[in-house]
Every structure is written in structure tokens, then in C-alpha cells.
């Protein structure tokens, strides 16, 4: 009897585990949805999009926590999140994990987002601001509201990155329903999130944008950076369409919002 109960219990546990895995798979790979086509016959990704998760706080699973800025109280507190990293944990090299922890401890001083620096890739996607995809045959533009960050994805005339940059150098291709964007040529200055997760200038990002319904995309990212991680790893999340008829990318020209923070100590002091 006891033995049977144990068996049933483990079977249920195993089954529910399998079910969860199956559900996760279903979410990640929506059934064979076929997107409407652009006039030149490609899956139509045009639109204004936004993610809805806590990845910008921390791409790894994390509990809720207090605001890093006391004055902001609950308004600045960190919402919990299940994480967007497949397998939960980023496979850091041991030294790199230490650096991430130092970054986290000093995040108010170090996080490039706080300084209104270009957010890098893939952080720009899940930073929480809307972005617009402008899809043409030779070039696909991604225009982000935050800091007016912009990416040019070359679908034709593809070249290697001419130099390192914040947003990298992106070449794209179509694989069936999926836009695959291969980005290299990053500098080592952007972060993945506010938790200090970081990369080096050896970063190689491959993003897959797959329409999963009229109003959602599946976004999968493979991260490769042998200077920082022991193996390539993946993030995935849905992206949602901003369906308001008057939706548009507005200006978030944040330089002037951070000038006092960055240069206030160099202000002329009144004569004593």
C-alpha cells in the first residue's frame, strides 16, 4: 500500500514535471502560426512592441527586494521574477560570477542604464520601453524609445562589424517564419540588466524573432562569450504588440536627466 502510494506520488510528480516542461515548450514554440506577409512576401514584423517581464531587473530568477534608492520606497522596489534564462542560471566562469556580484554591489555607480548610455543587445529589447520595427527589404530598423537607441539590421550588403559599438553590428536572415539576427562587434561596456550581469567584447548574440500570434512574438536569444561564460546559453520571452491606435515611439532623450548626476560635482560653487 505504502509502496503503491509512493509510486503514484512519484508518477504524479514526474508527470507534472513532464507537463510543465511540455507547457514551457508549447509557450516557447507556438504552434505553426503563419504570420501575415509584407508586400515583399516576408513575415510581417512591423509594429510597436514591448516586453512584459522583470528581466531588466535581473535576467536570472530573483525574489522581490527593496529599492536600491531609499527615497523611492516601494515605487523603486524590485518586483520578483521567474527569470528568462533557460535553465535558470547563467553559466559564468568562476571569476566572472565574482565580477557580476561586484557589479551588483556597486550598481548605482556602474549600471550604464543609470547614466543614459546606449543599452546594448539584448537588453534594449526587454528594458521595458517600447520599440518599433520598421521592416524593409534591405534593412530592418529597430528604433528604441530609451535614449533613442537604434539598430540597423542588414538583410543585404552584409559586412563584418567595422568597429566595436554599444548596439553591435547586426546581419539578419529569414528562416521560414523566423527573423534571425546575428550581432557581433560589441564593446564591453553594456550590461544585460540592473543586477550587474555582463559580457565582454567577445559577445556574440543570435536573436530569433518568431511571430506566435497576430499580437505576440517569441523572442529567443543565444549568448556566446567565451571570456565570460563556460558555454553558450539562452534567454527566451514573449514580446507583445502595442495595439493602441495612437501608439508611437516618443522621445526619451535622457541625457539631460542625468547631467546633474554625472557632472553636478563640477558645477561652479557660489563664492564663500
Amino acid at each position, binding site marked *: 500500500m505504502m509502496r503503491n502510494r509512493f509510486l503514484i506520488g512519484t508518477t504524479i510528480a514526474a508527470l507534472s514535471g513532464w507537463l510543465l516542461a511540455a507547457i514551457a515548450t508549447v509557450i516557447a514554440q507556438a504552434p505553426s502560426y503563419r504570420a501575415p506577409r*509584407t*508586400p*515583399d512576401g516576408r513575415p510581417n514584423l*512591423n509594429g510597436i512592441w514591448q516586453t512584459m517581464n522583470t528581466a531588466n531587473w535581473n535576467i536570472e530568477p530573483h525574489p522581490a527586494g527593496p529599492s536600491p534608492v531609499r527615497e523611492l520606497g516601494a515605487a523603486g522596489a524590485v518586483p520578483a521574477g521567474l527569470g528568462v534564462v533557460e535553465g535558470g542560471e547563467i553559466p559564468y566562469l568562476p571569476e566572472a560570477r565574482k565580477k557580476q556580484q561586484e557589479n551588483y554591489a556597486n550598481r548605482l555607480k556602474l549600471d*550604464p542604464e543609470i*547614466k*543614459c*548610455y*546606449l543599452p546594448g543587445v539584448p537588453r534594449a529589447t526587454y528594458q521595458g520601453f517600447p520599440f*518599433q520595427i*520598421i*521592416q*524593409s*527589404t*534591405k*534593412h530592418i*530598423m529597430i*528604433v528604441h524609445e530609451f535614449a*533613442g*537607441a*537604434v539598430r*540597423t539590421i*542588414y538583410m543585404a*550588403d552584409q*559586412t563584418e562589424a*567595422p*568597429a566595436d*559599438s*554599444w*548596439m553591435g553590428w547586426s546581419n539578419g536572415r529569414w528562416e521560414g517564419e523566423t527573423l534571425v539576427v546575428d550581432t557581433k562587434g560589441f564593446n564591453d*561596456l553594456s550590461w544585460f540588466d540592473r543586477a550587474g550581469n555582463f559580457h565582454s567584447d567577445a559577445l556574440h548574440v543570435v536573436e530569433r524573432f518568431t511571430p506566435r500570434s497576430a499580437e505576440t512574438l517569441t523572442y529567443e536569444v543565444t549568448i556566446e562569450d567565451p571570456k565570460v561564460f563556460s558555454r553558450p546559453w539562452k534567454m527566451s520571452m514573449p514580446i507583445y504588440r502595442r495595439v493602441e*491606435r*495612437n501608439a*508611437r*515611439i*516618443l*522621445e526619451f*532623450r535622457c*541625457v*539631460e536627466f542625468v*547631467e*546633474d548626476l*554625472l*557632472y*553636478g560635482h*563640477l*558645477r*561652479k560653487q557660489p563664492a564663500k
Partner: protein
Amino acid sequence: MAAALALTLAATISITGQTQSPAQPATAKAGPASAAAGKADKSATAGKAYKAPRTPDGQPDLQGFWTNSTYVPLERPNNVTKELYTPEEAEAAIKAAAAREAAQTEPGTTADVHYDFSQFGLDRSQSTFARNLRTSLIVDPPDGRIPPLNAQGQKRAQERAAARKAMGGQYDAVENMPVGSRCIIMGGAGPPLMNAGYNANYHIVQSPGYVMILTEMIHDVRVIPLDNAREGARPQPPSQVRQWIGLSRGRWEGETLVVETTNFNGKNPFRGASENLKVTERFTRTADDTIQYRFTVEDPTTWDRPWTADAPLVKTEGPIFEFACHETNYGIANILAGARADEKRAAEQKKGSN
């Protein structure tokens, strides 16, 4: 590709249109735009027959890399009384302007020389630029000059000058420095699109319902939603939403893209305008390598009449590389730190002499 440093020493790399040897002196014969420029001249008179290629959704195709770099000044010079130069006079005007740019770079000729414009390919003559027989970009009023400020415009100019004075010296605080040096916005972004002196490059991409204009300077992007038959005219954006580049909406009138922009925040006043500025731009592709670009500015609280300029865009070579400006804006910090160090030294000298 030419590595270049912006005036603020912000890192920037331009790989657009820098097709000639960077070492070529600025006074050398004009760059590869000659052919394009010939077209630009012709288009003003004989462009009617040209029909632009179409995008897959049927819009006239404006896509690609363009520049509005030019030696034609916005306003007609004081000593010029005619609308058009002869070709010889135009060539001489270009040479004289190019020589002025080169003169800046001769050691000792200018007190505050930062670096050699011609060495880094930043002088206009080394890149594609739009040639034109016009003596001014302004075509209306007919004298080629911006109309005089009206009473309200003059009052505002005085108030702005007083407010600037009250803020103290230019190096007292970051807010006192020019918005371009602070990497907030540079002249080329507009609207209207004004040639920026260098890096005057744009990338136009179209998708159904949208035209996007990327300005090389500080990767400034304007996404212009288009009115269409299905949804009709776009609602006017709420007046509370005001932006450095305003809010644009566009429509096709035959071969011409007409873009109207309002909702400016007035913090980067165009030629003394207020936040009531309205800019109407008309883009017409008149040849494979030319877009006729005409803009009209209106602000009854600044000028008693609208004024209009023609500033053609000519095709140039891409791609445009990321212009991250603020991220390495060491110039601002160093200038302010230098000013504080000067003050400290002056205070110590004063103390020592007492």
C-alpha cells in the same frame, strides 16, 4: 572609413561618404558629388519627367543613404544681390568656403584650433555634397533672408538672452553649455534637416505606413507615421506632449512626401522660433541620386510671414556607423573640471598676493 572626434571629443566614427584620401587638403577639387550635383541643378528645372521607383507597398521609394552637405548658405550673403550664381561664380564660392574650412586647420591661424578638420575628413569637400547655383537655400522671401523677428520674437530673444546671462558663465555648469556639446541634439536632426557641417548623413527606410529618417549625428531617429486611406488622417498629438524634434506626421501627395511637425518643446529654438513652430517638409525624388527637399517654417509668434528653403539631398554611400556621443563625452567633464581648476588657481594667486 575615417575615425573622427566630435567637437566635444565624443567618440564618433563616420564611414559614410568618406571616399577620398583623408590626407587630401580641403582646398582640393570637390569630391565625388560632382555628378550628383549636376543632377541636383537639373532637377530644379527638368525634374518633372522623373518618376521615382516604388517600394513593395507602392510608395515612391526614398530609401537609402543621403546627405544634405552643401556650401550654399541658408541666407544670401550680404554682398550678393542675385538668386543664382553663374557656374563659374558657384565654383569660386565653393572654393572660397572650402578654403575658409582649411584655414581653420592651419596651425596658428585660429586661436582655438582643436584638430585638423581636413586630416580627419571632416571638411565638406572630402565627402559627397550637394552642388547648387543658388546663392542661398532660402527661396522665399525672395531676398533669400530669414524675415525679421516680429515684436514677440524680439521680446523672446531678449528674454532668452537675459535668462542665459542669469545662468552665469558658459563653463559654470553643464546646463550652460550648448546642447550639441552636451550630446542632446545636433543641428542636422531637425526638423528641418539642416546640413550639420560634417557627418551630414541620413538613412531613410520605409515600411507600410511609416517613413524613418536616421540622422548620423547622435543616432537621432524620426519615425514619421503616414496618414492612409484606411485609417484617415492621424489625430493631432496632445499639446502636452512636446519633444526636442517635435511630433511629425506625413502623407503622400502624388510623388511628394509631405511631413508636418508641431509639438516642439522650444528648448532648441530653430533660428529664434518658439515652441509654436510648425515645420512643413516636402520630399520629392527628382532623380536616382537626388531628393528635392523643401521646408517651410511658420511661427506667427516669431515671424510675420512663413519662410521656405530648398536644401536638396544627394545620394551618398552607406552604411552609417553608430554615433555614440554622450557615452564618451569626456569633453564636458574636462571643460568643467578645467574651469574649476582655473578658478582655484586664480583664488590661490589672489590669496598669495594679499
